[in-house]
């Protein structure tokens, strides 16, 4: 009898919830459910990294991990909404294809190798200086002032922070690299 009485259809009729949208759709389990966001230690205000609308995001953090990313209701532009891309930010951040280690391919190599980060930095610095030396143009072939290296180029920026773009332009200009470009031209 108890089994019959706990049957949702019976409850619908008995408990005045004929459409089955209210009380009768609930169960002890559903009562215990809570959004992941309720478990967070703290919430951090961020901005979506995808398009240029610039939706506000709330990142929910627990034990040093991001457990969810939601829209920030406070933003005057987005008012809490996110599109599918912004809503997938957590997957972007911690999905299974994300890389965490430096990989190195030697000239003519057929596979990736491991390389410590610090060593990679030293090798890159060495190559930058070497190529800069090899391709330095104090003057152009026509004898005009150059003060540059035409052998090194840098690409990227639209997905980066203003502060990052600033350091890129500042450092590379001081190195004499003029071929600094990004997606704005693509």
């Amino acid at each position, binding site marked *: 009898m108890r089994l019959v009485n706990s049957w949702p259809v019976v409850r619908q009729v008995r408990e005045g919830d004929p459409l089955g949208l209210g009380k009768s759709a609930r169960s002890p389990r559903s009562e215990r459910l809570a959004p992941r966001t309720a478990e967070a230690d703290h919430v951090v205000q961020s901005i979506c990294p995808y*398009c240029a609308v610039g939706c506000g995001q709330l990142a929910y953090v627990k034990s040093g991990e991001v457990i969810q990313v939601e829209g920030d209701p406070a933003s005057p532009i987005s008012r809490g909404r996110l599109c599918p891309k912004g809503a997938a930010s957590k997957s972007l951040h911690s999905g*299974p294809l994300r890389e965490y280690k430096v990989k190195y391919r030697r000239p003519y190599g057929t596979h990736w190798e491991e390389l410590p980060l610090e060593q990679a930095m030293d090798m890159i*610095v060495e190559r930058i200086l070497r190529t800069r030396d090899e391709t330095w143009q104090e003057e152009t072939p026509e004898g005009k002032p150059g003060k540059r290296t035409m052998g090194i180029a840098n690409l*990227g*920026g639209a997905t980066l922070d203003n502060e990052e773009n*600033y350091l890129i332009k500042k450092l590379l200009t001081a190195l004499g690299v003029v071929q600094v470009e*990004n997606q704005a031209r*693509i």
Partner: protein
Amino acid sequence: MPGLGTSFGRGGATDYQQDLQNADVITIMGSNMAENHPVGFQWVLEARERGATVVHIDPRFTRTSALATKHIGLRAGSDIAFLGGVVNYILENDRWFDDYVRNYTNARVIIGERFADTEDLDGLFSGWDPEQGLYDTTTWQYSGMPVHGAAGQRELGFKGEQSHGAHGAHLKHGEPPEEDWNLEHPRCVFQIVKRHFARYTPELVADACGCTVEEFLWYAEELCRNSGRERTGMFCYAVGWTQHTVGVQLIRTAAIIQLLLGNIGRPGGGILALRGHASIQGSTDIPTLYNILPGYLTMPHTDDYGGLDGYIERSSSTTGWWGRADAYIVSLLKAWWGAAATPENEFCFSYLPRIDDDNSNYWTVGQMLEGNVKGYIVAGENPAVGSANGKAQRLGLAKLEWLVVRDFVEIETAAFWYDSPEIESGELRTEEIATEVFFMPAASHLEKDGSFTNTQRLLQWHFKAVEPKHDCRSELWFYFHLGKLLKAKLKESQDPRDLPIQDLTWAYPTSGQIEEPSAEAVLAEINGWDDTGRALAAYKLLKADGTTACGCWIYCGVFAGEENMAARKKPHWEQGSTALEWAWAWPANRRVLYNRASADLDGKPWSERKELVWWDAEQKKWTGHDTPDFDEEKPPDYAPPDDAEGPDAIAGSHPFIMQADGLGWIYVPQGLEDGPLPTHYEPHESPFGNALYRQRANPRRQVNDMAEDPYNPVADEGGSELYPYVLTTYRLTEHHTAGGMSRFVGYLSELQPAMFVEVHPDLARERGLEHGGWATIATARSAIEARVLVTDRMRPVRSNGRTVHQVGLPYHWGWRGLTTGGAANDLTHMALDPNVHIQEVKALTCDIRPGRRPRGPALPAFVTELRARAYAERAGGKHVEPSDTRKTG
């Protein structure tokens, strides 16, 4: 950006997204806003709730069209014909906002008598040099006043230099220009524009664009009746306008319309340039671009002479806010070289390397192919899929000595040496590729502090939520530590070329185990400080004597009072609709640019319904709902004395304060490569000749003479029938740009799981294509395959007397990730707009046939054979019009 920059003075969206709700008519063209700026699109829907008319003008019926009042189909690449028709309609039917046009634009200015228009020269302007392939713009100038080029343009004028044009050109002070306030003089701008667009009738528009006369007239009337004192309209555009060989001129046409209708600087008016990446606006403001320095100052050119003084002379305007270019450049040099930068050494101006006319990315790719560029660092971009002519990109990568790729996942650009179409075809072999590759995992936006500048010039701070793991590092970390290591390595060097590195200020504080530099410290430098180290509050406080430092003058004020204004997060429900206390917009937290124009000559709003800023005669200052984009204390009737300079030379009635004459430029005398006015030209690759002029395509467009970038025969050349369809590329909500941030993400890959090609049922019937089946699409460059999506949203167009089909391709796919597919950019070419060097991927031609593509070496064999047949037809048959001097392949 030069389209807006030369017209108004700044190259950025003039308005903000929320202001869409205040528009009475919204034109979305060259954009699929609901698809690609979905959350921003809520403001279009708010406008509709309030009764606004929303028109979507596009080759395809898209998600935006579904929510618009009306969709008007348009042949891809015919936008200038359409908009030129609108200009013609406005002028023929007396629909311009007369008070606004007479007082706030250069409609009344008289142009020199040697000027000849495209109507006179069958598609060319005066000054065309067919040998050099560029214009001498002397004859385009204002009568009686030599107009000097935009900042950085050198006297010589014959160089095909691109002025970035994000700002307006400057006028050399001499005699005042000749003007006709009656707008009747045959050589006044108003009359020139009228003649220039006189043949852009509704009938011509219908034929050139493939729409109907009724549709066009409905739109033109809807636009006009929703403009004026009481009503305003906004234009929204994105890469559907910029990715053309006439991109800049296309935007200019909209600028002309908006100036004629008096919509610039008004609430619910303006032009909302919809940019595509989280901080693409920021990456042009603080530019990782070759030809400019922060704040749209220009990089010095190999042809420049005269040191810092010469640079300032060329960069400055004697009038307007560019009159203070000396303060901006000196403050920048002080920020970069600190104590080493002194008045005696011209503040280390000589440390800056020099650029050529064109060192843009497509030029770099050519240099890679020639073996001149040996090292490449790619951070957060995927050119193997995202840049035009994918094969040329990858062949270029294979010629490098070393490559550094920084990203979240192993994108195609990082894997080209073992996984790419060229490895599959055998055109490249892994064991023969010498390129050394470093893949460095990047930190996500949740793992770093920093600011993005969004499409409405708003700097918004994102806070770090968690630490990056393992080897993941931010670009801030990477470039900072790169700089630190370089400084250490070059510390003892005696070579003068190393001085710029030795003297570079680089002492940003770091924290934490990984020694992450402080993003806020970098922002503080961008903002700038005075000689006591105190944060500057506004760019008008910058000095040219070395007592101020500022990394980017247009961002000055973001850190005023030592407060990170970009990090302000006051909820919108606690403020007015302009929400001035959420984050910070450049310049000076103004939300609607040129908003002086929202008031009349007396400083009174044109109407109560459209009030924005106004002159408060009691308080003697400008006030209102927005920060005034004007000198707050300058009265509306201020008349500058004859010897006034810089900002003081701008009158109280001139809203366009960055322009030398303070006026909105309907006609642009200087600053653009391809004309003072927009002209309808066919795309570089098109099935049609030009119905209006003998000059078929933009004479000034950049084309390449390289084996890797061959072009399809065009118009009525023999062989064009082998690539007979119009091809256009576009984007989907669920994917993002070249796929690095979406094809590797589970949910997004599920939502859009396969590359597809969209065709109309008639085309499917004509070519034997089956919905859900496979098709191969080919151009002279390459061929890809895609699943077929038959839909009547892809319309054929009836144009130039015949029906032509359009083929549509999303461009997100590549061969790596959770969802893989053909890369649309393998089909595209590298012919570019001459002002900004952007590729034309919105309108080109192609072939399409059923079935999967050939595999292995059979793929390049197929492509080559088809192309050879086409070229043989062309050689045997009719050639392109003689006036079109550019090579076509």
